[in-house]
C-alpha cells in the first residue's frame, strides 16, 4: 500500500513534467500545424547549457535561468532559420525539417560533449517526505509539481486573459482572418515557438536529474512519452495535455514500480496503439463538435 502511494506521488510529478512537454508540442501544433519532432533535441541543448553554467558558477538556479534563456533563443532561431522553409502546402516538410534538426543538434552535442552520461545534481534532498508513516514523494518531486503547476497557470492566464494570448489563439485557428484584423501572424507564430521551446526546455531540465543523466539522446524517450501524452489528450487541447500527462505519468510510474522500468517503452507503445485505434482524436478532444 505504501508502495502504491509512493508510486502515485512519483507518477504525479513525472506526469507534470510530461504534461509540460506535451503542452509545448500542443503550443506549436496549434500555432503552426507542425508536430515539432525536434523538441526533445532542442530541450537537450538547453539542458546542456544548464549543466555547463551550473558547473561554472556552482549555482543550480543560474543554470536553470540560462537554460530557459537558451531555450527561448533556440526557439526563435529554429523558427526563423529552419522552419520558415517548411512549405505551407505540406505538413510533411515541417516534420522532415525537424528531423534534420534533431540530427544536427544531437550529433553536434555528441561531437562537443561526447557520448558519456553526465549526472545532473539538484539542490534537493531525494529521500521521500513521510506523511503519517507513509512515504509520499521527494522534495524534488514536490518542487517539480509546484513549478509545473505554476507554469501551466501562467500559460492559462496568458492565453485566456491577455491580448497577446488572444492574438495567438486567433492566429492559430484562423490565420488569414487574423491578418485582416491586424494581427501580425508571423510574429505570433514566432512567439509560439519561443514559448514552446522554453516550456519544453524546462520539462527536460526537470526530468533529466531523475533519469540516467545527461547525454545527447537523454530526451529521446521524453519526446516519445510527450508525443503519446499529446495524442492521448488530443494534439489541439492544452487541457488534454495536462490530463493526459498525469494519466500517462502515473501509468508509467506504476509500470516501472510493479513490472520494471524496461517495460515502459512497450507500455507506451501499447497505450499509443490503443488510443489511436479507439479514440483517434484523443480522449479529450473538443474539436470534433467543431468539425461536424
Amino acid at each position, binding site marked *: 500500500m505504501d508502495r502504491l502511494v509512493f508510486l502515485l506521488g512519483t507518477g504525479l510529478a513525472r506526469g507534470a513534467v510530461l504534461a509540460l512537454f506535451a503542452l509545448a508540442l500542443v503550443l506549436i501544433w496549434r500555432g503552426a500545424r507542425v508536430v515539432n519532432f525536434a523538441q526533445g533535441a532542442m530541450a537537450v541543448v538547453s539542458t546542456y547549457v544548464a549543466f555547463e553554467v551550473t558547473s561554472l558558477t556552482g549555482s543550480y538556479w543560474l543554470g536553470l535561468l540560462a537554460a530557459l534563456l537558451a531555450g527561448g533563443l533556440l526557439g526563435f532561431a529554429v523558427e526563423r532559420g*529552419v522552419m520558415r522553409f517548411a512549405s505551407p502546402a505540406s505538413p*510533411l516538410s515541417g516534420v*522532415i*525539417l525537424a528531423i534534420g534538426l534533431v*540530427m544536427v543538434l544531437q550529433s553536434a552535442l555528441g561531437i562537443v560533449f561526447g557520448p558519456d552520461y553526465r549526472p545532473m545534481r539538484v539542490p534537493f534532498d531525494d529521500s521521500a517526505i513521510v506523511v503519517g508513516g507513509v512515504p509520499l514523494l521527494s522534495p524534488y518531486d514536490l518542487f517539480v509539481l509546484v513549478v509545473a503547476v505554476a507554469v501551466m497557470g501562467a500559460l492559462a492566464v496568458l492565453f485566456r486573459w491577455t491580448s497577446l494570448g488572444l492574438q495567438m489563439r486567433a492566429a492559430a485557428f484562423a490565420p488569414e482572418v487574423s491578418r485582416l484584423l491586424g494581427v501580425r501572424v508571423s510574429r505570433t507564430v514566432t512567439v509560439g515557438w519561443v514559448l514552446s521551446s522554453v516550456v519544453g526546455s524546462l520539462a527536460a531540465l526537470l526530468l533529466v536529474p531523475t533519469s540516467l543523466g545527461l547525454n545527447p539522446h537523454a530526451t529521446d524517450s521524453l519526446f*516519445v512519452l510527450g508525443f503519446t501524452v499529446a495524442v492521448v489528450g488530443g*494534439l489541439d487541447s492544452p487541457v488534454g495535455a495536462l490530463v493526459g500527462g498525469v494519466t500517462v505519468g502515473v501509468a508509467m510510474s506504476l509500470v516501472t514500480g510493479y513490472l520494471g522500468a524496461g517495460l515502459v*517503452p512497450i507500455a*507506451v507503445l501499447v497505450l499509443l496503439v490503443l488510443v*489511436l485505434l479507439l479514440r483517434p482524436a484523443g480522449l479529450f478532444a473538443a474539436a470534433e463538435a467543431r468539425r461536424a
Partner: protein
Amino acid sequence: MTGRQRLPGQRSLARTLVLAAGWTVVALGGTFALDPFRNYQLALVAAYLCATAGLTVLVGATGQLSLGHAALMAVGGYGYALTVNALPFEGLPAFVLALLAGALASAVVGLLLGLAAARLSGPYLAGLTLAVVVALPAVASTWSTVLHGDQGVHVAFQGVPDGLRRVVALEQWQAMVAVVVTAAVVTGLTVLRGGRFGLRMLAVRDDEVAARLSGIPAGRVKVLAFTASSVAAGVGGAVLCFVAQTVSPGAYTVGFSLLLVVAVVIGGLGSILGAALGSVVIVLLPWLIGRLTANLPADAAQRLDGNLAVLVFGLLLITVMAVAPHGLHGALVARRRRRSSRRPTRDGPGPTEEPAPRKVLVPTEEQR
C-alpha cells in the same frame, strides 16, 4: 491507343518487368567487377533499398511518413533468423522460406500499426512508428528467451552453393542474392504503384474527401499502402540478416531509421530511383567520412565517429528540404527537361515518361 489510359509516370506491366530484368542483369554483372568490400557495400545498398523503396512509395503515394522503418526491418530480420534457425534443412529452400516468414512477420506488424495510425492523416503515423523504434530494445530484452536481448539472434553461416564456389566469392554471392531479392521487391512496389491500387493511393493523397466520395475506401487504401511498405522493409531486414548473419536491436536504432528518411528525402520523395540513389549515399557517405577522420587523434576520432556523418546528413536534409524539395531525382528530371526543351522535339514538349513527383506531399488540412 490500346490498353487502358495511364497517368504520366505510369508504365505498362510489360515495360516494368523488362526494365526490372535489365537493371537486375546489370547489377548482377556489376558484382563481377567489384572487390569483396564493394560487393559487401552493394549488398547493404540493396538491403537498404528494399526499405527506402517501401518508404518512398508510402510517402509519395499516401503523403504519410514513417520514422520506424528500421524497426520493421528488424521485424523482418528476426522473422528470417528465427525461421532459418528452426528449419531442419538448409540451402535455398530454407532461405526462401525464412525470407517469406520475415515478410509475413513485418506484414502482420505493419498491418497492426497501419490500422492504428495510417487511417488518420497528419503526424500520427510518424509518431507511432517512432515509438516502435524506441521500444525495440525493450521488446528484445523483455522476450529475451526468444530474441536474446541486446545480443540479438545469430544465424548459421550460409556459404556459396557448391557449383558456384569456384567462380564467386562469398561477398559477391551475398551481393547477388541481395540484388535478386531487392529487384523482386522493387518490381513488386512498382507494379503496385502503377496499377489500379496506385491510382487509388494518389486519389487519397490528393483529396481524401473527394476520394471517399468517389467510392474509394480511403482508410483501407492507406492501411494497405503501409502494410506493403512494411513488407518491403521487412524483406530488406531479412536480406541484411542474411548478409550480416545476425540481427540485434543495436543495428536498428532511431538513428538508422532517420537515415532511411534521409535517403528517401535526398533521393526525392516518391521516386524509387531516388531511393536507390539515396541508399547509395547513406552507405557511402559514412564510410567516406570514416576514412577521412581515421587519421585524427583517438579522442577526436571517437567523438566524430558516427556523429560527423549524422551532422552532415542532418544539414543535407534541411538543405534539400529548403532548396530542392524534390531531391536528387527531381533535380535530374529538371535538368533533363531543360536540356530537352532547348532542343526542339518532334513529338510534343519534353519527355513524359518520368515526371518529377509533382505534389509529393499532401495538402495541409485547413481548419475550415
